[in-house]
């Protein structure tokens, strides 16, 4: 037992020495979380603002101009172009000059006074006249996020157009937004980013670890020594646990200082969730490295795991919105469980044990993976 620990220690020291000489890898440990946090936190924004749109104003009245100003005051769109005909406006959408066009009809003022939300008494008897919207949006609907933002304008209040006091109707539901009342995307993204970056670096480093020993011929020497495969595996992944912890600190620290991401949970809970996930990722990397024949292959397999970890784990799109088969795949990925855990801990101050399913799943994944890796790694050559 003592000699076994000594052998694991020997591998750990060796890995750390090699890592300290490998300037590129060492730099990546710091730079990957730093750059990606700045990049993603600024870039990923689901609250769309200032969509470039055009206008076709058939009415050319002061009312139509006030209407444009009221719409652009919402901040969702900004009028950059004006077109004379619907045809030329549609062409502009085809050419991606604008994402949508507001078409204001000639009779916009008549439509407006008859509009129920304006509230000029009871509507006339003819239903047809009451139900007409005052203007029309032509939208490039291919991007659902942008289309959704403009669809949100459908029931824009119009009272202020006519200098009337706002006649807000009582909403059907009262909605209270917990944990992220200002609805900033960055609050949801930064904790998720921890999972993506850890998946990337942890799997990448360890999946190359064993393959590298084989490629450089060191394995031939190692297998003649009393070193057991499980000792080699543990010694190999141990230094990367620290690296993972450093990366998590960078991401959450910067998220807190730069982007005001609240940190509601306890540090111990965070450490527990993170360690569970780091171990699961490292073990997954080890399994890959026992399958891959070269470092290139191990890299390809890492990407194979990384993409679903970004797209299916709930980092980018809500888990609940995915079809059932995709949910099954997501359940198999450690990143999915970790994203639930870390969002719970960081944003909602939930203890890890209260999310026991995700916690146990990560533990089971780690144990099973270590077993598979140790069995797959053959000490003899045949």
């Amino acid at each position, binding site marked *: 037992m003592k*000699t076994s620990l*000594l*052998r694991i*220690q*020997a591998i750990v*020291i*060796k890995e750390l*020495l*090699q890592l300290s*000489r*490998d300037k590129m890898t060492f730099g990546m440990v710091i730079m990957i979380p730093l750059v990606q946090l700045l990049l993603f936190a600024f870039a990923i924004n689901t609250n769309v603002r200032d969509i470039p749109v055009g206008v076709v104003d058939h009415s050319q009245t002061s009312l139509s101009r006030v209407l444009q100003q009221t719409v652009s005051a919402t901040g969702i769109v900004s009028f950059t172009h004006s077109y004379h005909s619907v045809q030329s406006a549609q062409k502009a959408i085809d050419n991606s000059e604008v994402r949508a066009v507001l078409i204001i009809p000639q009779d916009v003022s008549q439509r407006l006074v008859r509009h129920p939300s304006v509230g000029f008494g009871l509507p006339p008897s003819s239903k047809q006249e009451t139900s007409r919207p005052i203007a029309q949006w032509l939208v490039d609907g291919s991007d659902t996020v942008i289309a959704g933002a403009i669809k949100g304008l459908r029931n824009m209040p119009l009272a202020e157009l006519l200098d009337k006091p706002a006649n807000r109707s009582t909403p059907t539901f009262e909605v209270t937004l917990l944990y992220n009342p200002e609805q900033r995307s960055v609050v949801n993204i930064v904790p998720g980013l921890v999972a993506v970056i850890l998946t990337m670096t942890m799997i990448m480093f360890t999946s190359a670890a064993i393959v590298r020993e084989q490629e*450089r*011929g*060191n*394995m*031939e*020497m190692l*297998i*003649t*020594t*009393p*070193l057991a495969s499980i000792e080699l595996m543990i010694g190999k992944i141990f230094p990367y646990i620290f690296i993972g912890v450093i990366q998590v600190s960078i991401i959450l620290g910067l998220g807190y200082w730069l982007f005001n991401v609240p940190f509601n949970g306890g540090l111990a809970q965070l450490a527990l969730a993170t360690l569970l996930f780091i171990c699961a990722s490292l073990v997954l990397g080890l399994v890959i490295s026992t399958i891959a024949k070269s470092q290139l292959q191990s890299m390809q397999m890492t990407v194979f795991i990384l993409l679903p970890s970004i797209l299916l784990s709930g980092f980018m799109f809500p888990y609940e919105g995915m079809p059932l088969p995709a949910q099954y795949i997501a359940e198999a990925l450690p990143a999915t469980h970790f994203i639930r855990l870390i969002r719970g801990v960081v944003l909602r101050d939930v203890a890890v044990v209260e999310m026991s399913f995700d916690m146990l799943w990560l533990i089971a994944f780690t144990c099973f993976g270590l077993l598979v890796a140790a069995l797959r790694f053959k000490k*003899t*050559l*045949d």
Partner: protein
Amino acid sequence: MSTDFHSTEHDEFAINAEKLCKNFGALTAVSSLDLKVEKQTIYGFLGPNGSGKTTAIRLLTGLLKPTSGQVNVLGCHLPQEANKLRLKIGYMTQKFSLYDDLTVKENLQFISRIYGLTANEQKSRLSELLSTHQLTQQSQQLAGSMSGGQKQRLALAAAVIHKPKLLFLDEPTSAVDPQNRREFWEQLFDLCDQGTTILVSTHYMDEAERCHKLAILENGIKRADDSPQALMNNMTTQVVEISANNLRHIKDNLIKLPQVISAAQLGTHLRVLVNKNESQPIALLQQQPCLKPSDKLAIVRPSLEDVFVSCTGQGVA
């Protein structure tokens, strides 16, 4: 252990293998190898590339499981007791297999930890090894930046760090100049003198000649084994050296004779191996029309290369 009949039986031999076979699919890498290596000797495997030297060594170190046959190395039955054997043997691989991005000292420290040396043992053993193998000055140098000879000395130092009883060297001097090779063999004789049994594979004749005993391998089959001297004495062929002008032409003609096993040019001479059953080899060759009466023929002492050629019927790579 001495009460155990089997281990006492093997006591005088460091390696005792019987009918050892290893197949890789349809390919037979080692075929029915019988091997007895006495303790405290240097035993050589001589053979061309692909003759099964490395496979044989891997079978004897327990890295490969034999397809059939019995192996006993240092009293350990293989493959069952391979893990126990690992602490007693040292293995120097054909290719440099230590870490290029660690220094000499760090490499040796790593290996000594793997073998479970305590901190004190480690310190004294390391300084001892560094001076024996003339690496003290290079101890802070990265292994990757060293010359072939220095790397080889480091590899040997790493292989003997735990004072193994038995040392396997797989073509240890293939990347080393003759001067370094000489010094390397001096180290091997020192180790042997201190009680280590050494098994070395090579395809260099001069290196093979230094071994106490030698096995000639070809296509996984052992063609002969004995001391180099005995091998030369007991050759089944005799060597005739011909001095003449037209050696390429003479060679092409003589090789057609059934009694001639092989003919090879060495500078201004032609060495012809003739079957020992032929009682008058000089007379036989002189009769050939391709030779002029003025050409000089003489029976000469065989070299190890002649032994090798007569055993395998071909030259060495």
